[in-house]
C-alpha cells in the first residue's frame, strides 16, 4: 500500500502487490566468456534516478511487465508489457 504501479492489466496498484525483478539488462551472448557472465550476474547500475525495471504482478494478473521508475522519488513514469512495446 505504498507507492502505486500502473499495471497495464489491472490499473494502479500498490507496489506491495508486485515482485521486484531488478533493473532491465541485456544478458551476454551464450558465447561470452565466464567473466562477462559473472559481471552480468553481479554488477548493477543501481541508478539513483530513472531506470527501467522488471516487475511481476503477484497479487493481480500474475504477469511480468516493465516499468520506468525514479528510484529516488519512487515515481513511476511508464509501465508496459514487453510485447506491447516491441510493436
Amino acid at each position, binding site marked *: 500500500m505504498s507507492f502505486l504501479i500502473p499495471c497495464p492489466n489491472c490499473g494502479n496498484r500498490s507496489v506491495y502487490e508486485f515482485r521486484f525483478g531488478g533493473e532491465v539488462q541485456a544478458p551476454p551472448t551464450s558465447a561470452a566468456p565466464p567473466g562477462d557472465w559473472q559481471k552480468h550476474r553481479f554488477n548493477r547500475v543501481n541508478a539513483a534516478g530513472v531506470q527501467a525495471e522488471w516487475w511481476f504482478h503477484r497479487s493481480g494478473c500474475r504477469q*511480468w511487465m516493465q516499468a520506468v521508475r525514479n528510484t529516488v522519488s519512487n515515481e513511476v513514469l511508464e509501465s508496459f508489457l514487453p510485447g506491447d512495446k516491441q510493436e
Partner: protein
Amino acid sequence: MKFRFHDKTIEAQPGDTVAAALYRSGQRIFSRSFKYHRPRGLLCVSGKCPNCLMNVDGIPNVRTCITPVHEGLRVKAQNAYPSLETDFLSVTQRFDWLMPVGWYYKTFTRPAMWHAVEPAIRKVAGLGEILPSGPREYEHAWMHAHTVVIGGGWAGMQAALAAAERGEQVVLIDDQVALGGQACYRKRMGPRPDAIIARIRAAANIRLLQNSYCFGLYEGNLLGVLQRAPHPGASERLIHLRAQQTVVASGAYEAPIVFPNNDLVGVMLSTGVLRLLHLHRVQAGKRAVVVGKSLQAGEVAEELRDGGIEIVAIVDPDTILKATGSSTVNGIQTRTGHFSCDLVVICGPRIPDNGFVAQAGGRIEWSEPQGAFLPTLPPSNVSAVGDASGEAVANTIAPLPTSKRAFVCLCSDVTSADLCDAVAEGFNHIETLKRYTTATMGPCQGRMCQLSAIGVCARETGRSIGETGMTTSRPPNPGVSLGALAGPKHHPLRRTPMHYAHQDLGVVWLDMGDWQRPRYYTDHLAASEEERVLLEYRAVREAAGLIDVSTLGKLDVRGADSGKLLDKVYTHRFSDLPPGRVRYALMCDEGGIILDDGTVSRISEDRYFVTTTSGNLDFVQQWLEWQICATGWDVHITNVTAGYGAMNLAGPKSRDTLRKLTECDLSSGSFPYMACREAKIKGIPAILLRIGFVGETGWEIHCPAESAEGLWRAILGAGHEFGVRPFGVATQRLLRLEKRHVIVGVDTDALTNPYEADMAWAVKLDKKEFIGKTLLAHAAKDRSRERLVGFVLQSPGVPEDGAAVVVDGQPAGRVTSARYSPAQLAAVGLAWVKTSLAQDGVFIDLRVNGELLKAKVTMKPFYDPEGVRLRQ
C-alpha cells in the same frame, strides 16, 4: 456512569472523558514527568501533550483527556510511587545539577560501572506498565475516494462540500466528538455551523469518518486512518484510505510558552481551559491569570469570564519572570508585580498542523509575518486549507528565557538551559540537537516543544528560525497501536484435499510455510516420534506406504514452444522426451546455482506436467513466465497445484495394492520406472508417475482434488491386507536420506551448484543453450570449493542437523541432514566438506554433542545402491 480510579469510584457525566471526570472530582495532578518526576496537570485537553497519560483498562500511556468514559473503566496513574501526590522519585529534581544534558554519555565510561548502574537507570526510566487487559478486537479495512478531507472544522467542511458539489466521492475525517472544529468550544467565534453540518450529513457522496484520526499520509496518497470503536464488536479499525486528492484541513493547535516553572500544575493552554469549560462544563480554576498578547488574550479572558471564571490579570509574555507555587501554581511573577491565582491560562502560538503536507513531499517553510511553518510547495494531489495552511495564524514568538526550570520538552524534561548547553557543545544542527537532548522525541511527538526548540537553536546559533528549519515529519503521528496495525489475527492455512482423512487417522502436523502436512501418524496412540517413524519406515520397506504429496507444485505446460522453454530453464533436455515418460528436472540460475528441482512428464505430444518443490512453486512459475515474457514464445502455463490431490504409494506391495483398483497394466514391462500414464483408479481419472524418491517400487498419483480423499481412503483400504500404512514427512525424510536423494533448500543453499551437490549427471552441457550453461561449464572444471557427501557414523549416536565437520579444530563443513538408518544400523547423513575429503572411505570428524566422532564418507546411496528395488 461510574469508573474506578485506583481505589476510588468516580462519577462521570454523559459525554465525559476520563480526564474531565477526574478533574471535576478534584484531581489536579495527572502524571509525573519522565526525568524529574515533577507533578503535571492537564495542559492541552486535546490528546496532544504528554501530561494526562494513564493506564486505562490495562493499556498504558492512554491520553485520558480524549478517552470517553464507559461504565466500569479501570484507571490508574503511572510512573509515580507511591501516588501521584507523593512521588518519592521527585527528589531527582534536587539533583538536576548532576544530570546536565547528555550526562549519561559523560559518566560511567568504564564498562564495569556502567554495567552496575544500568539496571537501576532502566528501572526508573520508562513510563507505563502493561497490566492484564481483556481481549480486544482490531479490524482492517480499505477505502477508495476521489477527495479526502482531513479535519471536520469550518475549512474542512467547506472543502468537502465543494468537492461533493463537483460530483466527487468524498471522505471527511474528523477526530473530534462533533463536527465544527473550534466552534464547538470557542463560543465567541459564533454559533456552531449547524446548517453546513446538516448539508454534509445530507450529501450522498460524502462519507463521514467520525471519531477517527489520520495518522500518516504515505506515498501514493495513501492515508492511514484510525477509527475508534467502529462497531460494538471492535475497539479499533485501521482504514487504508487511497485518495486521488487530499485536502489537509487539520487546523492549528496551541503550544506552550517557555518561562520558569511553566510546567506547574494549573498552567494550562487556553484551548484546554475552554475545552474543559464548553465541552465538559468544568471550570479549570476560580481565579485565572491569562498570559498572552493583548488581542488574543483579551478574547480568551472575555470567554472565560462568560464561563464564570474570575480574571485576575492579563499578562504579556514579554514581562513574565516566572510562575510561582510548589507543585500547583499559585501566581505569576512579572516585572511589575505578583498576581495570585489558581489557574494560568496560556495563549500560546498556534501551530498549523500541516505535517501531512510534508509527509507527502511538500516543502514547509518559515513565514516570519505569520510566525509559523507553512506549506509552500505542496505536491499536486495534496493541498492545505484553513489554519493548517496558515490562514488566520499570526503568532508573535514569545521570548525563550534560558532557565533550568523553563521547560521546552515536557515529555523528557528538557529545559531551555539544556538546549543552550547542547548547542554550545556543538550540537548546533536541529537534527543533532534533537538526538542529543531527546527534545521532540517523546510521546507528544514534538507538538508541544518543536517550535520552542527551534527558537532556542536559532537564537544560540545566530541563525533565523527559517534557516534552522524543522525536523522531518514522519508518520505515524498521532501514534497508533500495535493491535490496530496488526489487524485481525488471520493466518491463512493451506490444507491438502486429504486434510481431514489425516485428522481421522490421528496425526502430528508439520508446518511448511502456510501448508500443513502430516509429520507422522499416531493412530491415536501415544508413542515417541522415533517409534512411529520406524513403524512407518518398515511398512514402506517391507509392504508399502502412502504419503500425501499434494503440496508439490504442479504446472500444466502447453503450447508449441513448451519443449524449447523447458530445455532453456532446466539443465536436462525435455524437447526430446517421448510422451509417456518422466525425467528428473534441475533448475539453475545464470550463475549455475540450484534454484529448484522436480519432475517433468510428457503427458501427450502437446502437454507437459511439471512438478516443483512445495515451497518454490510461486518462484518457479514466475521464473518460467519471465522467460516466456522476455522471449515471446508460445507457451501457456497453468498452475494446477490446487486442482490435483497427489499421493505417493511406495513399497514392494504397492503394485498388488494398486492392481485391485485399476485396469492399467502396472507391470514393469509396460509401465517401467520413469514412465507416466493417464489411467482410472477406482473410476477416478488420474495421472500416474512411476518414480522413486523413497527408493521402492512406487507410483505418484495425481487426481482431481475433490476425488483425492476418496482415492486416499480407497488405496489404504485395498492395501490393508498387505500391511500398507500411511506415512508422514518425518518418515519420508529418513527414506530419501537412505537413498541419498537431495532436498533443495535443505541440503543445498544459495551458493550450491550441481557439481558441488554431486549431481553432475543432471546437467547436459552438450545441450546448445540453457540458463547457467556458461558458468556451469566453468564450475564443472573448478573443484576448489566444497562437496556434498554421504557419511556413515562409526560410533553410536546421531549428529543433529547442522552439526559441524571439524578439521584441525576449525569448522570445515556442516551436516545438512542425519538420521539413524535401519538399513545401515548406524547414523547416516549428508554433509558439506572440502573437496579433498569427498572420496569413498575417507574419515571425517563430526561434532556430536560437543564431542568429535568419526564418520566414513561414501559417495553412494546407503540403501539399495544399485537402484534395483525401485525398478522392480
